[in-house]
């Protein structure tokens, strides 16, 4: 079962009860200006969720979207970020080494870092995972006095979102943000305005970001095998040629180390030493005749 939150922007009055409940639940303490921060009202290490104010009484709740296939989870090299079966993306601070690739990877720019700590950690919304496992609901959902936040199974919430849009055709923009973006998220939005500004791009595609890196990563075994056989093969051919050339030249015994190459042996690797074509008859450097 995968839980989700449905945010109905048309119902939010911007009272910030959810923000306070979140700060209280997660014991985040008072806001203070972190390095690089201009106002305390944005997301920060002491604010897992916040309310963005937009013209005409639009209040947009900003928090971790708990993507179905999270970029941060695939980015973390030690597995400190995990997507739980309950739907939450949680962070294990005991594994984190502080590389901050999760901050780089997130398509919504959510994770925050404790820049002014000597032993800093990543901070982000956990969907109150500790409450979910006990059968509870996230603190923000519980605190919302206007029912702007709905908590439940993701499928049911999607159905509810579409039902609301269908019942109020003029009211809502016909789009459920989070249904398909970056492969779908566990925090869904319906609104009477476009919420494209919430991500790094107005139009986040439907591809889950981990697929993009996996396209390159899955080639690794083939690269190892391919590069290994290619290099081994070239070495074998070159070495054998040099051995034959050396034997033909003075009948010297075979030498385990690569022996100096002569111009005969070089012609089939001109790509790597194009200058050979400039000096086809150049004699080997005198140092080259020393066996290693």
């Amino acid at each position, binding site marked *: 079962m995968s839980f989700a939150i449905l945010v109905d922007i048309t119902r939010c009055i911007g009272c910030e009860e959810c923000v306070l409940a979140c700060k209280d639940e997660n014991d985040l303490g008072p806001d203070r200006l972190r390095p*690089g921060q201009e106002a305390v009202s944005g997301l920060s290490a002491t604010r897992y969720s916040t309310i963005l104010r937009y013209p005409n009484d639009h209040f947009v709740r900003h928090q971790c979207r708990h993507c179905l296939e999270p970029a941060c989870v695939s980015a973390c090299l030690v597995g400190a970020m995990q997507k739980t079966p309950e739907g939450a993306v949680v962070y294990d601070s005991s594994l984190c080494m*502080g590389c901050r690739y999760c901050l780089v990877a997130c398509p919504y720019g959510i994770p925050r870092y404790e820049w*002014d700590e*000597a032993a800093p950690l990543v901070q982000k919304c956990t969907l109150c995972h500790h409450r979910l496992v006990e059968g509870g609901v996230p603190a923000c959902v519980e605190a919302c006095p206007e029912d702007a936040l709905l908590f439940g199974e993701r499928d049911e919430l999607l159905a509810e979102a579409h039902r609301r849009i269908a019942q109020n055709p003029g009211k809502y923009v016909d789009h459920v943000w989070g249904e398909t973006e970056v492969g779908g998220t566990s925090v869904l939005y319906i609104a009477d305005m476009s919420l494209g500004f919430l991500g790094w791009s107005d139009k986040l595609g439907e591809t889950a970001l981990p697929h993009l890196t996996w396209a390159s990563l899955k080639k690794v075994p083939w690269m190892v095998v391919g590069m290994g056989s290619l290099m081994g093969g070239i070495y074998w051919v070159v070495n054998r040629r040099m051995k034959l050339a050396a034997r033909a030249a003075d009948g010297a015994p075979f030498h385990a180390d690569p022996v100096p190459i002569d111009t005969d042996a070089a012609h089939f690797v001109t790509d790597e030493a194009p200058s050979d074509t400039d000096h086809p008859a150049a004699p080997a450097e005198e140092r080259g005749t020393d066996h290693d």
Partner: protein
Amino acid sequence: MTRRLTTLKTVLWFLVGVLASVTVIRFAHGLGAVTNLSDAAPWGLWIGFDVMSGVALAAGGFVLAGIVYIFGLERYRPFVRAAILTALLGYALVAAGLLYDLGLPWRIWHPIFHWQWHSVLFEVAACVMLYLTVLVLEFLPVVLEHRFFQGEFFQRMVKVLKRFTIVLVIAGIILSTLHQSSLGSLFLITPYRLHPLWYSPIIYVLFFVSAVGLGLMTVVLESLFSNYFLGHKVHKREVSGLGLAASVLLWIYVVLRLGDLAFRGVLGMALDGTWQANLFVAEMALSAVIPAALMLYKPVRSSMTGVGVAASMVVGGMIWHRLNVSIVAFARPEGVGYFPSWEEFAVSFGLVAAGILVFLFFVENLNVFDDVKGHPPEEPPGYDPEAARSFLPGSLALPRRYSVAVLAGAVLALPFLPLSGVPPRPVPVQGPRSVEALILDRGEAEIRTLMFAGAAHLSPASVAGSVAPGTLQTARVLLLDGNRDGDVVLFHHDDHAERLGGDRSCETCHHLTKPLDQNTSCAECHRDMYEPMSVFHHGVHVERLGGNQGCVDCHTGETTVKSYETITECSDCHRNEIAQRAFVKAPPPRWGEAVGYMDAMHGLCVACHEREARMDPGQRPEGLDRCMTCHNVDWREDVQRLQPRPRSAEWVVGGTGSASRAAGQGGSMP
């Protein structure tokens, strides 16, 4: 030892001294103290330069090893040892740079035990660790040539290592191919943040090809530097050969990069005149096109100056490319910039300086450039009478000179460092504005209410009908960000001054303020909105509990003193009256206090409202369980002050704040 080498070393030692001071502050106070990194720019110079560029610059190691050992082009052998040493030091510096950049550097070993196959960074980390090991094994025979290691054990070790040379070289090539390309793959996951001119589905191919070209040019540049500073022989024919090889690879890089842009249909973006487009054109010209074209001309290629210029362009240009990918062309929220702090530069340069010093140490004591068996350097340990005379005389002149340089660097850096950590910054406050307000004054017993006069339905004319004549006045009051939360409230300065004691009251708010604050915030005095307070009424309790018989209901012990210290907790009786959403979750063991005003009101009202609305939806007013039932500005003036947030657009002032809230909470004058 030449004078120019002495000067170089002095400068390098100075940089190491600066590095030492910055290091202390970095680890004592964290990243925020010495860097300009932020949530918007999580990766900065230390990743872009030390890691991205450092790894690419060290590519010469595996390229030269491949050329000589695999392709058998023996005439490049004189470059191999220096290239491998450079690679070894380069990767060591990458690891050192990571120790600075990682938030929790003491966990740098975590990837060895915690594997996450789907992370590109894991692959990079694994490859870099393995390749560093391979490089150490590749370079170890050179170290073991030294006369300190002539024992039988070491010589046997050399034999074993040499037997595995080809295996090590091939392993090095595989590992390098993997992580040189994977440094590019790191950015595959940021299609929406990295500018399309730099983002590419084949970015890993571009990183690999450019790294090979860059590696060749680094070897060239290094050879020229060792000629300049150490007087080593330049192998001119081979240097120009490397230049031509680099040219071929750079052309492949150019074709791949432009071809990919064309294939994706964004080539036009490169010429549309935006700063990114100009950056792209300049970067491509400097890093690849111009040097690659230069290297095609034989006169330029044969001149060491020509090759040096081209190599410098490639090295500079490719560092620039890596910085562009990881920093410059990487999207940040609007208005948030990133430029490295001087400490970040100091660490990057200091690490490079340390690397060069180690390189020089190896070159002076081992056969790095003269790859001839049994031929340790015959130069005496560098004593240069001229250099010594110019500084402190004596046989320790140079070591002393360098020690002074380190000390000077370390001391000179200190005044510029945040020795006590990240300085706290004042919370930004919206500047106060003078605005017109309505004051509803219904006599001494009633609470006076401030209202924002800008709202249409609250003009004096519209309100006048609903209130008693003479109770409504207009006045100019301040609109200020009283609680430093970005929300403005109406503030009647004269009224505060009057209540607090006239002219002598200024200091209450304007003198004993907190550091970095201009004046005391509202909440410092108006705490009762949020904080629990002592409001226990003993008389009421005595009466309700039936006079003196009721004493033992609270003062339970028969023989104990009947005092505050021995009292039963309020919550023991008033268990069901604790506000559901009170900020104070767990009352202290002996709390004789009531919850704050807001919690008390919410706790008393909201639960019942919600219950009634749910049980009897048809009979109750619509939205009984909604905030607006009580906090609605359209309701009577005496509940308007409870209104938490703006209701209509014209009330929003200054873009972020809400004047309606001002008309409510902040404006109610106690």
